[in-house]
């Protein structure tokens, strides 16, 4: 068992270190701070093969040489990376609320508005002693899913499991889209990621169901450094949903996830996100920092990657889901709704890098700012010299609600091929008084009227979401803007 031997060596080598965690290995968390030993600790804890540890160490070494980027239009106090835990085992239930009655009523009212069933509410609020299975109608549902997927030949499991079971696949693709040295937060993630999803769709398979982190069993508390890898082989199709409309509370303020997608010939990946992490209170205290690197590589001819995101949560969002359109005739899409309220800041957008012939991309971005929030669209469209006949269409619209918010658009358009066509349009405006008046005149409350108008404004994007998400997302749009008028 070479993997086993490697691991043993691994643990032994850890022990040799001055600050080695000989005893800590037995415990469930690493001490505060970030150094090479922590990286080794995480790797050892996860029983990882040697190549992965080396990969992590390389990322860490590179991270040390990088400076935290400051170009995004977001402001936050400096993060002390040494004052955080980078590994802790799933939390015990000690502090969890006994019943739903102990849960923050504000949170519950939001669940209610979203129409989330009671059982799910309990799970989301982290109520003690609720079996996850209950949500999905006992284990049988999960097992059914697993069996259906297995029959189709689809691999869908936590990435830590994939490292053990399919090391050659993970090794081949991980870091091939977002290299370890890509950027500050990606390097950090590469060094200390704890878990995430792994999806592999073999040749010619159309994934029989929409895959969702929601249904991923055994991956609770993947923590702040999530890593997702999705590979779609020739002629395959998968739709992946991430996140959840219900607000999630999390102990960790800093989140730095990495998502990598690989689409081979004629394959299609549809990746949908609804992000609703805790945004902080109305005074801007607390809230999640969400620094995410998401990138898809359309490697094969006629492949397609489509990103859809609804971003309503987090105090700070720093996120640019991108497509590298390498295969001829490949297609990249980006549909985004970003809603910021109170003191939230969002700097989000996409990159479309056209390398192959006749590649095309479409960007539809809708930003809504209310309260004292700031929202920025930042996007790059790049036509490389070989991108004959490539095509891009970008539309980014911003809506301002209130006098104290800001909406910004920072597009970068670079074309090096004359036959490539790039079109970019952007508008910024507020909700027209006559629209509002019309709704009010029909007896709608101002809040409902705004929710309706904003939903109409976002329709192009929301309709790209899978059905069950779309319904919830519409409600979410209204809820996110609560308190922004009056």
């Amino acid at each position, binding site marked *: 068992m070479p993997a086993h031997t490697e691991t043993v060596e691994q643990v032994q080598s850890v022990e040799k270190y001055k600050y080695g965690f000989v005893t800590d290995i037995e415990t469930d968390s690493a001490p505060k701070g970030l150094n090479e030993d922590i990286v080794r600790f995480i790797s050892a804890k996860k029983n990882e093969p040697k190549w992965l540890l080396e990969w992590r160490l390389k990322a860490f070494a590179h991270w040390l040489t990088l400076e935290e980027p400051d170009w995004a239009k977001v402001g936050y106090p400096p993060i002390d990376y040494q004052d955080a835990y980078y590994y802790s085992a799933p939390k015990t239930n000690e502090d969890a609320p006994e019943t739903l009655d102990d849960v923050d009523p504000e949170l519950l009212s939001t669940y209610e508005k979203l129409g989330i069933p009671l059982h799910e509410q309990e799970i989301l609020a982290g109520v003690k002693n609720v079996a996850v299975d209950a949500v999905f109608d006992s284990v049988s549902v999960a097992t059914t899913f697993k069996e259906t997927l297995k029959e189709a030949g689809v691999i869908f499991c936590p990435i830590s499991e994939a490292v053990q079971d399919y090391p050659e696949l993970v090794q081949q693709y991980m870091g091939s889209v977002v290299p370890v040295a890509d950027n500050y937060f990606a390097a950090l993630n590469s060094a200390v990621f704890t878990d995430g999803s792994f999806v592999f769709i073999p040749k010619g398979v159309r994934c029989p169901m929409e895959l969702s982190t929601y249904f991923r069993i055994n991956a609770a508390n993947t923590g702040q450094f999530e890593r997702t890898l999705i590979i779609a082989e020739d002629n395959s199709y998968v739709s992946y949903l991430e996140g959840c409309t219900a607000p999630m509370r999390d102990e960790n303020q800093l989140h730095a996830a990495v998502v990598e997608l690989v689409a081979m010939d004629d394959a299609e990946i549809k990746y949908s996100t609804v992000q609703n992490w805790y945004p902080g209170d109305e005074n801007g205290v607390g809230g999640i920092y969400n620094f995410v690197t998401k990138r898809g590589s359309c490697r094969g001819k006629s492949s397609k990657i489509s990103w859809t995101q609804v971003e309503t949560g987090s105090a700070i969002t720093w996120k640019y889901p991108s497509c590298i359109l390498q295969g001829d005739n490949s297609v990249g899409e980006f549909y985004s709704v970003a809603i910021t309220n109170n003191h939230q800041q969002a700097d989000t957008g996409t990159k479309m890098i056209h390398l192959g012939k006749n590649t095309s991309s479409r960007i539809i971005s809708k930003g809504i700012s209310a309260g004292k929030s700031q929202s920025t669209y930042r996007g790059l469209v790049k036509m490389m010299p070989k991108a004959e006949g490539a095509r891009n269409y970008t539309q980014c619209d911003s809506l*301002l609600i209130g006098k104290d918010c*800001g909406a910004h*658009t920072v*597009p970068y358009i670079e*074309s090096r091929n*004359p036959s490539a066509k790039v*079109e970019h*349009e*952007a508008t*910024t405006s507020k909700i027209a008084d006559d629209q509002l008046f019309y709704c009010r005149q029909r007896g709608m409350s101002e809040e409902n009227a705004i929710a309706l108008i904003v939903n109409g404004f976002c329709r192009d994007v929301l309709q790209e979401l899978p059905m069950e998400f779309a319904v919830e997302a519409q409600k979410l749009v209204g809820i996110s803007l609560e308190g922004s008028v009056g």
Partner: protein
Amino acid sequence: MNSITPTSQALLDRYEAVKKNFVGADVPWLAAIRDESAATFRKHGLPTPRTEDWKYTNLRALNKIAFDGDAATDVNVADLPERAGSGPRLVFVDGRYRGDLSHSGASTKGVRCSHVADLLESDKDLIEASLADTGDETPLLALNGAFQEDGYALILERTTLVDELVEVLHVNAGSAVNQPRNIIAVGAGARVRLLETHVGTDTSTQFFNGATVVTVDEGAKVEHLRHQMQPVSTVHINTIRAHVAVGASYNSFVLAEGGQMSRDEIQVALMGKAASTKLHGVYLGSGCQVLDNTTVIRHQAPGTKSEENYRGALNDQSRGVFQGNILVQKGADGTDGRMSNKTILLSGEAEINSKPQLEIYADDVQCAHGSTAGELEEAALFYLRTRGIPEGEAKTILVEGFLAEVMEEFGLGELAGAFRARISSWMEA
């Protein structure tokens, strides 16, 4: 402490070496402003592509220039372009005013059409105020502030209307650096049109770094036209800062076709209610040229309006850069801002980098921008070919038509013909 590049250091060395010989070196307040500007420049040095505003335009061409080389040659009067009208024309050679080559035109009451060095005593306050901006955010403006010796001064009293086109000709003849600082100060309700032309001899100045400070008082109107036709050996940078008061307007048009690297940067502050600006331009790139148009419009008051339209055609390995930023400050309600940038790539190696940016902090606004890049439409070309028009000619017609739209929208008046002719001859070249 930033370490500045050897080129930046060379410029500073040059400054220390020659500052004693500058016009007005013995005027203490002027010398102080120069020193201050040099200090500001020292703090930042020349911008590199790591600086966001200079991401697409690299100043490394300056590294090859020896700033201490001064080959003073005189200009041949016959080589100077003809006057466009019968109005006054000020001629500057290597940044110094040349009365012998200039025409004063018919004198109008309330208008002073002069050069800065001549006004050091009479208009100290005005000059001091316009030089006081040492350009903390614009290192090249700071550099200009250190080296400035002269420049044109166009000063209009209240309600003065100048019907004739005022012309300024900058000739680069032989000095290694040419950094004029110009002043346009227009009193309330006054109106003027100005054409600035930039030319050079083949052996001319290698680095032109000009700056103009414009103040437009209540209800006044300034139309500022520029034609940049420097030789391809020149690095040309021109920075304009305009302050526009209540109901006033500053309109600018630039035709950029010269220089190995050219940057026309306009920063407009719409400071008073209902102030407006219109920034239009056409760029024609060929060879290995880099043509950069950068604009920043700050809407600082309610009801302000801006309109921006830049179009270009790029051939060979040339590269176009468009950076537009519309910034709407808090309280500038009722702002209307429009920006458009369109480029035609005529060759497989040409490149365009466009960054039309909106930064908005007020809610009652209407802002839009658009940007496109691509080649000539095949259907249009085909249409013309079916009518028996040869390909080359058809292309010329289409490119001319595409670019002429911007000129018509701006309204160039009597200059329209001449500017259009430049485009045709560029297409034929």
